[in-house]
């Protein structure tokens, strides 16, 4: 049995894979990987690898086009497929209609529906296909980043890059903080073993690119939280710290994604 975070982290301040608390895993990405689609990307965060392609905006499908949402702006349609070979045990069930993939799809759909400037494309659909090739934690965060890259590649207008990142909390996080002990052990960008062991949350932020007159004044726009998702139980007193750490991670990821976009020109 390998060691676990809860016993060794307090002793060495090193995580299971040798990272410190505030380090991201190695993030690598490319865009325009699939010329057949409007926009596409490939992104890996550690051993989590995701391929994403965007089709559209295209004219809405029959029957849906006349719907209310369609008339106001484009509909965002997201499909998530976790490959059978993505995790340690091969899943026989193909199609990816599992609970996890549909939950990620729902979160992505609502996040990008309100994030993108959909009003520019009435009566149309933007469909995003996410393929998880290898799953090693922080799936939702990696999917957000991959989608952002693919959407940028497709040239769909948005106020800024949406970046996702996870943050976890080591130690006994299901009990209230001891007010006399201010020490907290938040961890950034969790891998799968950490995710299984510790409570964690996924945060997605948007930093609007300043436009108009003052776009030279400020280097950094204001950071907004667009996605916040947590599946584990955690005492409320820890949330603030975790959120802060997660947002800090998003900031780092944004720089990395910007680098990817700029270098691909």
């Amino acid at each position: 049995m390998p060691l676990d975070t809860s016993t060794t982290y307090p002793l060495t301040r090193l995580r299971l894979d040798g990272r410190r608390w505030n380090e991201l895993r190695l993030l690598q990405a490319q865009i325009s990987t699939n010329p057949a689609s409007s926009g596409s990307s490939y992104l890996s965060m550690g051993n989590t690898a995701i391929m994403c392609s965007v089709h559209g905006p295209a004219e809405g499908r029959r029957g849906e086009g006349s719907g209310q949402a369609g008339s106001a702006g484009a509909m965002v349609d997201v499909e998530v497929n976790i490959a059978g070979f993505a995790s340690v045990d091969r899943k026989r069930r193909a199609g990816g209609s599992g609970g996890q993939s549909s939950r990620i799809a729902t979160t992505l759909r609502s996040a990008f529906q309100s994030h993108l400037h959909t009003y520019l494309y009435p009566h149309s659909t933007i469909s995003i296909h996410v393929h998880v090739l290898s799953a090693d934690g922080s799936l939702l965060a990696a999917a957000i980043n991959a989608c952002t890259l693919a959407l940028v590649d497709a040239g769909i207008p948005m106020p800024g890059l949406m970046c996702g990142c996870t943050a976890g909390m080591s130690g006994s996080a299901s009990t209230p903080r001891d007010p006399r002990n201010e020490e907290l052990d938040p961890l950034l960008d969790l891998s799968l073993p950490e995710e299984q062991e510790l409570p964690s949350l996924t945060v997605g932020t948007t930093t609007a690119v300043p436009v108009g007159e003052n776009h030279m004044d400020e280097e950094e726009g204001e950071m907004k939280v667009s996605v916040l998702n947590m599946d584990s139980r955690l005492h409320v007193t820890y949330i603030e710290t975790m959120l802060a750490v997660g947002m800090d991670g998003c900031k780092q990821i944004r720089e990395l994604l910007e680098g990817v976009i700029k270098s691909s020109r």
Partner: protein
Amino acid sequence: MKSLRRDFSSNPQAANVSSKVFVRSTKSGKVQKIVRELYLRQDIPCSSKLCTICPSIAPADANGNIAPFVLSDRPAGTKAFPRGHYLVPDTNALLNGMDLFEHTGAFYDVVILQTVLEELRNQSLPLYNRLLALIKTDEKRFYLFFNEFRLETHIRREPDESINDRNDRAVRMVASWYGEHLRASSTKAKKEKAVPAIVVITDDKDNLRKAANEGVTALSLSDYVAGLEDSEKLLDMISEAREARDAKGSARGQMFYPEYYSMSKLTTELRAGTLHQGVYNVSPYNYLEGSVNVAAFDKPLLILGRDNSNRAIAGDVVVIEVLPQDQWKSPSTKIMDEEAVTRNDNPETEETEAVVTEKERKTLQEEVKKAHGKNFEGKPQPTAKVVGVIKRSWRQYVGHVDSNSTGAQAASGRRQQTIFVLPMDKRVPKIRVRTRQAGDLLGQRILVTIDSWSRDSRYPSGHFIRSLGELETKGAETEALLLEHDVQYKPFAKSILDCLPVEGHDWKVPASKEDKGWKGRRDLRDLLICSIDPPGCQDIDDALHARPLPNGNFEVGVHIADVSHFVKPNNPMDLEASVRGTTVYLVDKRIDMLPSLLGTDLCSLKPYVERYAFSVLWEVTPDAEIVSSDFTKSVIRSRDAFSYEQAQLRVDDSSQNDELTQSMRNLLKFSKILRQKRMDAGALNLASPEVRIETDNDEVGDPLADVKTKAMLETNSLVEEFMLLANITVASKIYDSYSQTALLRRHATPPPQNFEDLINQLSKKRNMELDVSSSRALADSLDRCVDPKNPFFNTLVRILATRCMTSAEYFCAGAHAEPEFRHYGLASPIYTHFTSPIRRYADLLVHRQLASAIGYEGEDGRAVIEGTSTRSKLEDICRNINYRHRNAQFAGRASIEYYVGQALKKRGENLATKGGDTGTDEEGYVMRVFENGVVVFVPRFGIEGVVRLEDFVLPGESGVRSIAERRELAVHRTTDFDNEEYTLRVQEKGHSEKERSVLVELFQKVQVNVNSVKEEGRGAGKRRVRILITKA
């Protein structure tokens, strides 16, 4: 289409990413391949205070703290390493010598590698936990170095390299890196010679050879220890397991025990149901007879003899195979003591012996004859043999050296010799230990551990850990007792004491009601509350009151110390308390669960001062019908603290008519009604053979005067009834709020077959019936078991009936269906423990659950429940507190037994000066009859003891004889044993006349002579309470 290959060239970070791939198999037999990333780095410090580089690169954690450096700048050295050394042990060194590493005399400045820690965890979880504890203590200076993550020390497994070789290479790698690193970093500041040596400790010969080639200093554990001072003592502490392994190579030929089945065979057959798994228990009267309870059968399966028990030791989880029916036997009717049967085994020369010695074989043979012989009514029971061991529950055992096993030259020479250690626990076989200090250890209480038990060895082999002190000294015996029952007795650590309120003894309930401490608390200071406890009680958990209400009903309140206010969930104090589980009461010592500042002062509901409390209030009608109940945190001021006697006197004194006394009288009245109701519902009135010992008596008097049987006053049951009521009320409240996680206590209905023997005995001997169909029926039939000539008979039956029952246990509500919640003994559908949070952890948890159930928010506005919100965590806690609770009871009983023995001894000595060691004459009752002895219970001292053949005083024989003389008698005596009638006739060989014999039968009252004697033997022995039957 673009290539999606990872491009590492552009990213500077990527060069440091490596990966670890390993394969594991899951419980269900699936094989999984796991790939993990590794981020190699250069900022992992060496943690030596000598180093000048690492402090500058050592990273801070999330709170900005940098871990302090551990390894000393002046490490201790030996003759071989005058400049001092840092030790780098590999896994097998830790496996063989964990006791050495824990020793306080040596082994400082140790670098534990990640590789080693991980390997150790795979090999032995207990050792891994001990190592972690060592790393956490500061004084031993153990540093956990994550070598796999440091760029310089990370190595990859070569294609044809075994995992062991790779790990050994990693250890050598670290050693050479440490050496270079320290030389490089400290030359600037200090001279070259100040750099300590890096010593790899390994027991792997191949590793030692390779280390020599690579220029790494490496020593085997024993070579290293030999260079230390005190080496003889330390050498004994190296585990025997390795030597046993070495010896295997040289093929000793004879195997005493059959081989265990392979693991895969065990698992398949377990699943198929042809083999069974269970915990191995050993009969307390016969060390050769074990039993295993398995799910598939109602009754436990018998395991007879060493061959069948096949190296299992009491407590091990074993796999057994049922033997064919022609080998079924009935349980033994003989008392067998390992010490007596195998007293002459020689620890050194065992190659020539068979596993079952001739003597043992003979005793077993008789058993078989019995089983098949005459009108045997009890059917032979299924027997089984052990074919595999799933989990060993070996621990450290307290014992003493068998003086017969040391050579004649024991006292002299330092030659290493093999000796037997007799564990205190009779169910554990003697342990073979190799030592050089046999002479010193004679007559000492010592701690040993079992390392291995191989097929070619008749007894398990182990090694010596430490000596507790001389036999029969108070300190040694008390410590032995605590160790044997796994009681945590070390003083509270500083981190725990830091959790106490800073005001210390000056802490007070805040005067102003605006204070946050008052939030959510009711002011009950004007109620006339008092506490009633045993005399001299310091940790007062509970207090009571009753007052009339205007509507003619009464308000009754039970107030419990509000411990959960002071012990917040998951701080070090809470964690320690959850490990300790309960306060342990010994005769002359109390091992507290909580630091005494809380237990005996701040929490304790002392009289005349204001204290926080958790109150349960009922409105009851004058007929003790409960109208409503209410729970609240409160502040109370107890008016007085009574002992049971004082309270009784006050209630009985008709001249006292103040309000407090009136309220106590009301309480007493209600308690009687409540008790009657409970009895009507079928609650059992059980008896346990307990005596109380008052130690404050002066030395001059009769030492036995301190031993008192517990008196039951009305006020005892007053307190008891209200505590039961409070517990039951709270139990249903928390179960309402937390249907899955409420912490409750249940007492399972005992299966009727448990009572079979007792029913049989009663109907045979007394023509009485025991109806066990329900607790009510049992209570009634117990009431009918009265012998007018023998007033104690009823109590005796109750004691025996209690032993047939299962023990009560804590559980969390989700673990059982609601009908299973029943508390059999109390005849209550639901029950928990709420009333003693100072001394029981379960009560503390229940307090937290109740506080949250009533919406109490705590002084800072946050709920306090979360402590154990998940069921699995709670189940772990239940398991631990059940275990601790049981152990605490055993420890308490053992302490009393020891004290009684000592009191008898002292009395014996007093009398001896006046001439003649005659012991004390008392009344005893026969509890069990065996073929070669009986078990007698002596109520005066609350002890039961085995009376062997030689201890019967036949008519016309002088009672006063020395032990040696008595031992001679045994061989001249024969017995006539009737298993159906439960009688035993003892007579001298050749004298079959009735006048010269003694006949004893079950339940009979006998006159006994109780005495404390020293077992004879060369020099050292141990003391036991000897009971002589003088008149039947």
